[in-house]
């Protein structure tokens, strides 16, 4: 296999199941960039950034009451101060992502977050005061007490180019398509992002890449207190307790630079229509669980058969992605659906829920981008439609399944289950990192869920000759709940949001200023009781400033 062939293989494989470099908020990025960027004898390529953010918000709680009938028990946002209901916050992240190249055929990728979204000013000198109290006024210096509190290892995996394919193993980013189901959060403006403990193999077949991956999602406690010393080899664990998945992907993919080269008139191959597509199928299972282990990671429970519950979890997921690109137009779509059953959804050892929990959540997005002007870089118009399936239970699904009941009309979030009366969970949430706005879904609700939306987005790059990269963005989104009775306010219209942004890059530095205004509609209000007069929720405003220094 030629080195170009290997590079291409790596590129498409990693695009199929993972990605480790910065990418746009929609569409796959260029995961092979480190291979391409490195010099022939270079063994270390450093990626990463330092990011500072400041946010200022006004009325982000929409002035919804809390703890009364029709409004639920959870505040949408912290109560602010003053007539404008202001809150603010600042944070800092230092991300280091070195790639260590070992010869021409292997590399090890590491990604570490130091000061992972640490709040600025969180630890003035001499604090915490522990057994006493004191003043922080005039505190001269702020510092974290130790690195142990601030480092997060996000990624550690290796990959080797074999004659027939690429073998990867370790903790690696997980991403597919537009990132509706799996999103690696590689953008500088992203937070969190999906990681998988995975062994994967990919090989080229007739211009496509076929990839297979085995993931270990949750391994559970050690199986027993083995007599031998800890640290000698993998600790024994119970296979039935492991949450595992097997994925297959078939993909045809071009990196952004390739897409540009093939579709753009300035290149020799210009003017082509490029069709990319992919499909991923995944099955996931867990026979048993040790729910008590997840409370505090108590390995002693691994030796206790009484701590094990029969789980009987089975899930299948299908994800399809399509992109058609010409010089001026790009159509991209993704549709994802899952079917699952949990025979026993009990979170307690010694308790079996007799009615299985099942669900069929699904979601999809279609986006069209066009460059209508002669100067193609000057204006980008972008339209998008998206939908995430609904469930009739009150509220949007909880971010994690920590409750099996108690949702009431008016709740913003709630369990979609209700004991034996409602054992279906059909609500889908588009990945929170598939961002369509600044306030409603990104900041308040954690990703589009149980709703459809229509979005118009424009990007203007007014001074490419003198200030390349400078761009202005405008964005308008209308969101509509699929099931009015399930929406917090009992009505389908959720809101209209207007956003604007300015992006100012300067060499390795970039500044991004976002401003958003949300007009919440009835679906986000507090539901009146009886003869109470309905009250419209209060419009919210947010400003977000981000400074980034790329490494």
């Amino acid at each position, binding site marked *: 296999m030629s080195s170009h062939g290997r590079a291409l293989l790596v590129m498409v494989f990693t695009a199929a199941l993972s990605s480790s470099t910065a990418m746009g908020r929609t569409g796959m990025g260029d995961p092979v960039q480190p291979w391409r960027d490195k010099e022939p004898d270079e063994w270390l390529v450093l990626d990463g950034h330092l990011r500072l953010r400041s946010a200022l918000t006004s009325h982000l709680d929409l002035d919804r009451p809390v*703890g009364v009938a029709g409004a639920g*028990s959870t505040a949408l946002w912290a109560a602010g101060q003053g007539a404008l209901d202001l809150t603010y916050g600042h944070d800092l992240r230092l991300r280091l992502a070195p790639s260590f190249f070992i010869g021409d055929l292997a590399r090890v990728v590491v990604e570490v977050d130091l000061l992972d979204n640490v709040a600025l000013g969180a630890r003035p000198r001499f604090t915490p005061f522990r057994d006493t109290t004191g003043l922080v006024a005039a505190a001269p210096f702020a510092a974290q007490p130790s690195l142990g509190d601030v480092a997060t290892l996000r990624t550690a995996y290796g990959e080797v180019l074999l004659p027939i394919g690429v073998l990867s193993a370790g903790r690696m980013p997980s991403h597919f398509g537009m990132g509706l189901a799996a999103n690696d959060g590689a953008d500088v403006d992203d937070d969190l992002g999906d990681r998988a403990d995975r062994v994967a193999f990919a090989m080229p077949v007739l211009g496509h890449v076929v990839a297979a991956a085995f993931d270990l999602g949750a391994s559970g406690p050690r199986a027993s207190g083995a007599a031998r010393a800890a640290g000698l080899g993998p600790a024994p664990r119970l296979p039935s307790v492991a949450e595992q998945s097997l994925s297959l992907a078939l993909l045809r993919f071009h990196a952004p630079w390739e897409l540009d080269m093939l579709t753009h008139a300035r290149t020799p191959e210009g003017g082509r229509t490029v069709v990319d597509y992919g499909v991923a199928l995944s099955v996931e299972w867990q026979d048993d669980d040790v729910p008590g282990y997840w409370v505090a990671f108590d390995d002693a429970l691994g030796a*206790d058969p*009484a701590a094990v519950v029969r789980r009987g979890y089975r899930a299948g997921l299908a994800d399809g992605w399509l992109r058609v690109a010409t010089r001026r137009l790009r159509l991209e779509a993704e549709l994802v659906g899952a079917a699952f059953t949990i025979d026993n959804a009990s979170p307690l050892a*010694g*308790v079996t829920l*007799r009615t299985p929990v099942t669900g069929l959540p699904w979601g999809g997005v279609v986006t069209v981008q066009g460059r209508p002007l002669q100067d193609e870089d000057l204006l980008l118009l972008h339209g998008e439609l998206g939908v995430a399936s609904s469930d009739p239970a009150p509220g949007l699904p909880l971010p994690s399944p920590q409750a099996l009941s108690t949702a009431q009309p008016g709740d913003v979030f709630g369990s979609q289950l209700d004991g034996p009366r409602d054992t279906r969970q059909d609500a889908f949430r588009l990945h929170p990192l598939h961002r369509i706005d600044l306030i409603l879904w990104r900041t308040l609700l954690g990703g589009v869920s149980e709703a459809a939306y229509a979005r118009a987005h424009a990007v203007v790059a007014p001074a490419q000759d003198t200030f390349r990269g400078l761009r202005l963005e405008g964005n308008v989104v209308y969101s509509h709940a699929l099931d009015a009775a399930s929406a917090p306010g009992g009505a389908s219209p959720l809101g209209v949001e207007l956003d604007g942004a300015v992006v100012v890059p300067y060499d390795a530095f970039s500044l991004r200023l976002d401003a958003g205004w949300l*007009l919440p509609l009835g679906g986000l209000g507090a539901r009146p009781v*009886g003869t*109470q007069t309905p009250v419209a929720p209060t419009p919210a405003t947010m400003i977000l400033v981000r400074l980034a220094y790329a490494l």
Partner: protein
Amino acid sequence: MRCDPVALGRLLAGVVLAGAAASWSACLPTPLPDDDEAYVPPAPAPACHGDNDGTITAAELPVVTGVVARYRIGADVAVDVDGSVDDEGVVVWDLSRPDPQGEPVASLAAEPMAGQWFADLFPQAGLAAPLSADSAQLGPLVIDDDGWRLLGAASSNANPAEGLTRVVYDQPTTLYPLPLSEGATARSTSRADDALLLGVPTSFVDETTVTVVRRGRVILPDLVLYNTLQVTVRLRRTLVAGDVQQVSHHFVHECLGEVARFVSPAAPLSQPLDDDFAVAQEVWRLSL
């Protein structure tokens, strides 16, 4: 069609007004359905991490006021107090039959002592738990690492139509000796002077014997529970005039508390009353 500027203006104004009205209505939430039950702010579920070892410690039997448990209450139901034994030697109580779907539901919750009309009578009590399925009578409790102790009884309402109940024991009655495990037992003798039972003045002595007799598997319509304890409570009450006895079997599970109950018919002390009665006066079954 001829263009009429005035009509066109009216039409446009109508469209704008209709749009504005539609927009305004879209801004407003809709009222809660009329048939919605009164809003009850959900109480935070008690933090409990059971180990399913057949022993229930105080930490595995938390009580939080306001957390509602639903029970189906059946009357005059045939019961198998001893249960059956499966192939592995585990005692099994199949309480999934008869189907309790048609039985009335009791929603029960422990209540804080603060604000209760009888709070001053029981200064040591930490909370009050329902003693009857209709919550008409509450039992002030002291709960600590050693057990649950009943200090007496009181009507939940200060002026009940059926007559006031007010019972203050001279010594607490132990209901659950903690930790609960097979063989655990407690005997209590509690005297109540100047008591009121449904408005009738009386005095009496309650002799209570509590024993954890078995552990096994309880099958409920919604749940299967392993290592559940059967706690048998025998109450002998001697009144100024007359006496009475009653046996109840409480099935207690870690973190969930009482999941089922068999209550025998009451009988005079002079008559035999076996633990393994065949027909329960009342059967409680936890219902999700």
